[in-house]
Each structure stands twice: as C-alpha cells, then as structure tokens.
C-alpha cells in the first residue's frame, strides 16, 4: 500500500513487486486480499494499475499513527 502511495496512487504490478520485495505469487495473493478488503482498486484494461481507495488512504494514515505511537515506546510493528 505504501508503494502504491509513493507512486502517486497509480502503481503498476511490477513497481509493487520490486518496491515491496515480493515474489509474484505472494504479490497476486496480497493484491487479491487488499482488493477484497476494499483498500485498493484495480483499473486499466491492457495494463493493470492499482490505486488506494479512500478506505485504503484512511487505513494507511491510521496505521502510520499506530507505528508512531508504538515507535515512541521502542516497539516495532
């Protein structure tokens, strides 16, 4: 999700693959899960492009807060 946001909310699968350091099978699995959760959406006919939904943006913002809070105490998420 962070990779998608870094790519100005329009990321191709290859970008996500390298940015998140995933294998192809895992990438497909995680993308399907994220789509099912409604935090990302797929667009494009010939070339798929993924972007964050509003729900995904909110989740990412909240997760950043959780990371900052846990990090303040020295705990890693």
């Amino acid at each position: 999700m962070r990779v998608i946001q870094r790519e100005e909310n329009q990321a191709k699968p290859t970008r996500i693959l390298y940015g998140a350091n995933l294998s192809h099978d895992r990438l497909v699995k995680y993308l399907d899960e994220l789509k099912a959760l409604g935090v990302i959406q797929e667009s494009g006919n010939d070339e798929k492009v993924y972007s964050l939904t509003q729900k995904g943006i909110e989740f990412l913002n909240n997760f950043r807060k959780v990371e900052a809070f846990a990090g303040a105490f020295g705990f890693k998420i």
Partner: protein
Amino acid sequence: MEFVAFAIAMAVAFQAVKGYRLARERTLLYLNFSFLLLGAGLLVDGLANLIVLLSKFHRNFLFLSRIGYTIDFLAQLVAYGILVVVYLQQTRAWNSQLAAAALPVVLLENNPLTELVLIFLLVYISGQSAINYNVSKTTNSLLVFGAFTSLVVAHVFFLLFTIAPIFFPFAHISQLFGFLLLLGMLFKVNQTQ
C-alpha cells in the same frame, strides 16, 4: 494531580487498544494493560489522598488510606513489570523459566522498600526508552524517555518523602509532568500524516 495523570494514562491505554485493533500487535495490548493498571493505581492513589485529608476528621479513614496505597503500589508494580517484560522480550533477553514468587499481600504504607522496587523497574524502562531515542531520534521517543525519567524522579521524591514531608509536592509535580509529556506524545502521534 493524580486525577489528571489518571486521565492521561487512560488516554494512552485507549491509543494502545486502538492500535491493537488495527495492527493486532500483542505489544500494544500489553501497553494497554500496563497503562490501564497505572491509571487505576493513580485513581486509587488520588482517592486515598482525599481519604488521608478526611482522616484528619475521623481516625477510621487511616486504615482505608493504607488499602489505597497498597492497591496503588501493586498496580504500579504489575504495570511497570509488564513493560519490563515486553522490553525484555523485544531484546530477546527473556528467560522463560521464571520462578513465580508468591508474595503475601500485606497492607503497605508509603515506605522506602516499595519505592525502591518501583524505582528499579522505572530505571530499566527509562534506560530502554533512552536507547530507543538514541536509535530513532524522534520527538515522540524523546517525550516518552522524558516521561519515564520524570516518573523515576517522582518516585525518588516519594522515597525521600518517607524521610521528610517537604518532598511530597515535588513528587506529585514530577509525576504529573511525566504524564503531561505522555500527553504531548499522544498529541504529536495523532497529528502524524
């Protein structure tokens, strides 16, 4: 002052449980338990201090203040103990063969031994938060380090209070300052984009 610190402890506990619901990280749940206990202890301590005031008018209330202090001490002991355990687990220094010491519950008064136990736990926690600040160099980690250091100072003053009553206000001010630093950290975290 205890009631303000209680409110802040509850806010930290709430933030921790919010984080746990989102990230399902156990450390956040333990953080939640720890600050819930701290808050409960502070609430009891605040009420106990009110009782001490009332005891000036009725002798029977003195017994209740000892119960209040005992509960507060036990709550803090467990709360800081949880944090120590979590830090130990994080550094992988955890020894699973812990001997559970069953301590008889006796009613305690504010005494040097109880304060020394809490100081010992808090110094360890402060040390861990200092290491964290040294590594991360974030304002949030500095605020947490400052908070736990203030709590160490507060308990040193509580220790000195057993010798001389003049240290009582310094202890409470230092404790409140520590919790205000935690409140500052919460504000900063909630501004994170």
